[in-house]
């Protein structure tokens, strides 16, 4: 029976090559898009699933309130560890204090390579189930020990056995390799943990870390925990939420709340708004899930429309089969098996498309998705996918076709009713509604990115590079280096900063100034900078001046940005003093004198307003970056070569590394650009599939109306009149879709734009562009068939009767 059905289906496919091509290729493209999106979603959802203790690992987060705004951060103070261990230890299997994962130079023999690594407590080995492949099971016991990831060991030691070897950290500390652990695979947190060193080394390493031991206000550390099996994240959070408030009366004014962020949320739900979890990448998962479903539905609609449009051709077969004993259910089954066959062929094609495009897709989506050949779940999902698609595409045609009355059909009086085309029209409208909404959405995303890119940055980011301060050797050399670099001709100006130009690593409070409102809790972005900061970055001074070597008093000077002046409510700022709140102490820090006000420049998000910032003169060698303004009269490669030579001469042991500031700035748009480029591709696919369907329908209609066209032509209709006649029905549908799709897209994109403070308007030109584009594309699609039919010789079409 099934064989008979497949035979018919197959012969039908061969007989109607155009329809078969449209059906199969449309479905294949739709299925391929859905499969890629499916793989992407699976990858996103399986983030961190590598860890055995996935369900019980959490990071400790902190909410702090400032003037009614609550900020959420994973940075916590050191004494929190002791409080948790003392009062709440029974909730945890492990509490692991950790530094930030940071680049360090590891030196062995001639090799001095930069790796990312952290200082962590011993519990990390069991918590993350690190697989020790060489050396001691606990490699963090001794103060000067270091555990290496397999890839790190390979890069440093090649085939040598690394265990027991001595490495030099930052060219100054000797560390003994105690064990090697298997790399944590991509698509997991800690996948860039290239080495681990003991926390106890870290806390003796620098004064500020030592002193942070009892500083509840110094939020500069991280803590990961594994909770006990018999408790829940919520329960533990409830117990520890007030621990900081209770223990530190001075910090209580910020209403600090300590809570657990479960590992499952780190990747997908990492955005907090006013202290409350508010989404994150999960929104993209939903977005692309919906887009994938729609693309598949569009392809299914093509199948439905073409099958039902051609129903008159299949009607006779239905009548005959019914008259020789077929039950309706058998016919339904026949048509379903036919769609199953087509879906199966499409799947094979889609499979090939996915295999071919996976690399490109990975590139675009910044993923390392590997085709899951050996994952049985994938194959089960694929089979389900085929069945679901076959049922989505095939059930309506099956029900419709099997419903024909054999008596009417066989008598030859069967004509599809007046309203039989209505569902088809509705489906075409649905297709184009989706396509148009996608077009508008994509244009808005692209506009928003462009709008933010066009936003004035406030400094000159071209030919500006930053060199990270990677070694203690740099200490005290900045003026000397500046002179040498300028003399070399490659650099016109240089300044150091404690944070990169494109970020802020420190926020401070606890100041007092004239005009400070009562009870105001300030929160200022804080950066320590050297003399030629304003000149190097090319900042615009509004008032006052930059730091200058001519004023000895500038060691206690400060520059504010415009927003800070407004925020702090300072009138006539130049010359005013900003004091540390501790000025009543016996040994107060000297007050800071405002010497200049600069125009705001974008440091953090290009989508948000610039934060109030203070730039203090760096009197304590807080520099993290050398910022170099390269000589515009020389080529960049020349400049870089010269600069590298200068660094090599002065710091022969430190590998030279640098970043272009404009590239760092560009990276801020990457997440949105990724969304935009994926959305663009799926939009193009959606339009393509919709037009493919339209093309099929148009050719069918033209064929059906051949005789009518012939008669009209004989009666004197021009090609143009016939073209309008044949095209206008379709264009009407597209215009209805425009009317429905535009407001939907407008609403959704307005919602999307809400998450940016600095956002573009959705102007009427977006709609004009999308609408004219959609009409034009569909007109082109339909016109081919219309003109072909209109220019055919009527003698031929009439003779066949």
């Amino acid at each position, binding site marked *: 029976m099934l064989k008979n059905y497949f035979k*018919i289906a197959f*012969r*039908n496919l061969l*007989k109607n090559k155009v329809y078969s091509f449209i059906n199969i290729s449309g479905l294949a493209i739709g299925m391929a898009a859905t499969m890629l999106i499916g793989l992407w979603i699976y990858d996103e959802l399986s983030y961190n699933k590598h860890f055995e203790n996935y369900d019980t690992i959490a990071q400790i987060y902190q909410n702090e309130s400032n003037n009614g705004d609550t900020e959420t951060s994973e940075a916590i103070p050191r004494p929190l560890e002791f409080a948790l261990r003392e009062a709440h230890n029974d909730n945890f299997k492990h509490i692991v204090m950790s530094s930030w994962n940071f680049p360090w130079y590891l030196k062995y023999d001639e090799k001095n390579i930069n790796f990312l690594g952290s200082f962590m407590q011993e519990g990390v080995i069991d918590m993350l189930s690190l697989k020790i492949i060489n050396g001691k099971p606990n490699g963090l016991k001794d103060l000067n020990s270091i555990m290496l990831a397999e890839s790190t060991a390979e890069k440093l030691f090649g085939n040598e056995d690394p265990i027991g070897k001595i490495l030099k950290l930052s060219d100054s500390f000797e560390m003994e390799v105690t064990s090697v652990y298997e790399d944590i695979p991509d698509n997991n947190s800690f996948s860039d943990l290239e080495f681990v060193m003991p926390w106890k080394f870290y806390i003796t390493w620098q004064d500020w870390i030592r002193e942070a031991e009892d500083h509840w206000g110094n939020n500069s550390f991280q803590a990961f925990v594994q909770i006990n099996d018999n408790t829940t994240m919520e329960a533990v959070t409830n117990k520890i939420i007030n621990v900081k408030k209770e223990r530190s009366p001075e910090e209580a004014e910020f209403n600090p709340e300590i809570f657990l962020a479960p590992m499952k949320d780190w990747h997908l739900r990492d955005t907090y708004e006013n202290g409350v979890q508010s989404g994150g990448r999960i929104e993209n998962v939903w977005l692309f899930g919906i887009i994938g479903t729609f693309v598949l539905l569009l392809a299914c609609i093509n199948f439905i429309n073409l099958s039902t449009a051609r129903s008159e051709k299949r009607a006779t*077969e239905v009548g005959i089969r*019914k008259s*020789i*004993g077929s039950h309706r259910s058998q016919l339904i089954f026949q048509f379903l098996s036919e769609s199953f066959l087509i879906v199966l062929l499409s799947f094979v094609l889609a499979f090939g498309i996915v295999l071919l495009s996976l690399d490109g897709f990975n590139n675009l989506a910044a993923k390392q998705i590997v085709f899951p050949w050996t994952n049985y779940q994938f194959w089960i999902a694929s089979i389900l996918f085929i069945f679901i698609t076959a049922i989505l595409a095939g059930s309506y045609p099956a029900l419709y076709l099997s419903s024909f009355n054999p008596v009417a059909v066989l008598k*030859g009086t069967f004509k599809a009713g007046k309203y039989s085309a209505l569902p088809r029209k509705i489906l075409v409208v649905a297709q184009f509604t989706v396509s148009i909404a996608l077009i508008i959405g994509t244009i808005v995303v692209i506009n928003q990115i462009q709008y933010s890119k066009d936003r004035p940055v406030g400094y000159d980011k071209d030919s500006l590079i930053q060199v990270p301060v990677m070694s203690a050797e740099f200490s005290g050399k900045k003026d000397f280096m500046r002179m040498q670099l300028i003399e070399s001709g490659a650099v016109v100006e240089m300044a150091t900063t404690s944070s990169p130009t494109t970020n802020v690593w420190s926020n401070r409070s606890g100041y007092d100034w004239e005009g400070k409102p009562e009870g105001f809790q300030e929160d200022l972005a804080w950066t320590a900078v050297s003399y030629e900061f304003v000149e190097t970055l090319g900042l615009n001074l509004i008032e006052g001046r930059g730091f200058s070597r001519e004023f000895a008093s500038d060691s206690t000077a400060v520059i504010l940005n415009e927003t800070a002046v407004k925020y702090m409510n300072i009138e006539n700022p130049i010359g005013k003093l900003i004091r540390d709140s501790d000025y009543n102490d016996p040994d107060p820090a000297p007050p800071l004198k405002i010497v200049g006000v600069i125009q705001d420049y974008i440091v953090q998000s290009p989508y948000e307003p610039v934060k109030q910032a203070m730039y203090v003169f760096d009197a304590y060698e807080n520099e993290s970056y050398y910022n170099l303004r390269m000589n515009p009269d020389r080529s960049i490669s020349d400049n870089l070569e010269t600069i590298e030579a200068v660094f090599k001469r002065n710091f022969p042991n430190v590998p030279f590394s640098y970043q272009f500031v404009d590239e760092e700035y560009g990276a801020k748009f990457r997440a949105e650009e990724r969304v935009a480029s994926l959305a663009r591709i799926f939009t193009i696919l959606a339009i393509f599939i919709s037009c493919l369907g339209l093309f099929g329908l148009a050719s069918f209609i033209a064929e059906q109306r051949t005789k009518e066209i012939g008669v009209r032509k004989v009666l004197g209709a021009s090609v143009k009149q016939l073209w309008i006649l044949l095209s206008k029905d379709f264009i009407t549908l597209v215009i209805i879709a425009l009317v429905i799709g535009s407001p939907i897209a407008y609403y959704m994109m307005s919602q999307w734009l809400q998450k940016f403070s600095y956002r573009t308007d959705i102007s009427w030109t977006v709609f004009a562009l999308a609408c004219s584009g959609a009409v034009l594309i569909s007109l082109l699609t339909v016109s081919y068939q219309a003109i072909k039919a209109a220019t055919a010789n009527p003698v031929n079409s009439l003779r066949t009767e």
Partner: protein
Amino acid sequence: MNILLSLNEATRAVNSGSNRINLLEDITLNVNEGEFISLMGPSGSGKSTLLNCIGMLDSFTDGGYTFLGQPVHSMKEKNRSKLYKDYIGFVFQAYHLIDELNVWENIETPLLYKNIKSSERKALVGDMLDRFNIVGKKDLFPRQLSGGQQQLVGIARALIGKPKLILADEPTGNLNSKQSREIMELFSQLNKEGVTIIQATHSEANAAYGSRIINLLDGKIVP
């Protein structure tokens, strides 16, 4: 003689706008097994409707219809379909072969719906091809055959399920006179072998092959 089917004041009405029109009105008729009945009457007199109703493709709206002692009018769809699959074969004026299937497959199709095993199907179809002398054409598709040959295949398909009753709606309407004669002789032969036949026809000559002629006019049997 056993009664194959009987109609008792059977009526088929349709609504046309606000009017109710009787396509068939108060048809009372007994058909014995082994009869060869010719339905005659002008176009629109209800011949085809009567065949379709007897053949269960359509149903009477009123009156009684008994087939092999079973009341068709009060039967569930499923049972009716079984009765029909087992005992009735249709032959059409326009042959109505499935274009995408070849001769062999067209003849085989009814057997598929009766869930007959593959080996048995092969034997049955083979016999039928033999009997009609169309073995050489078994791989051809309908469009490759002449009208007469197509109708031969149509009859073969109607017979493959070993029906007790063949309903033929102007089986020779599209054929020339030579082909017509051949087909009618085939029917005559089948009838002698025990198959009951009801044919609708315009042709006196064809009607003469039958054992009884029933005249229809405006949906009623005229004596």
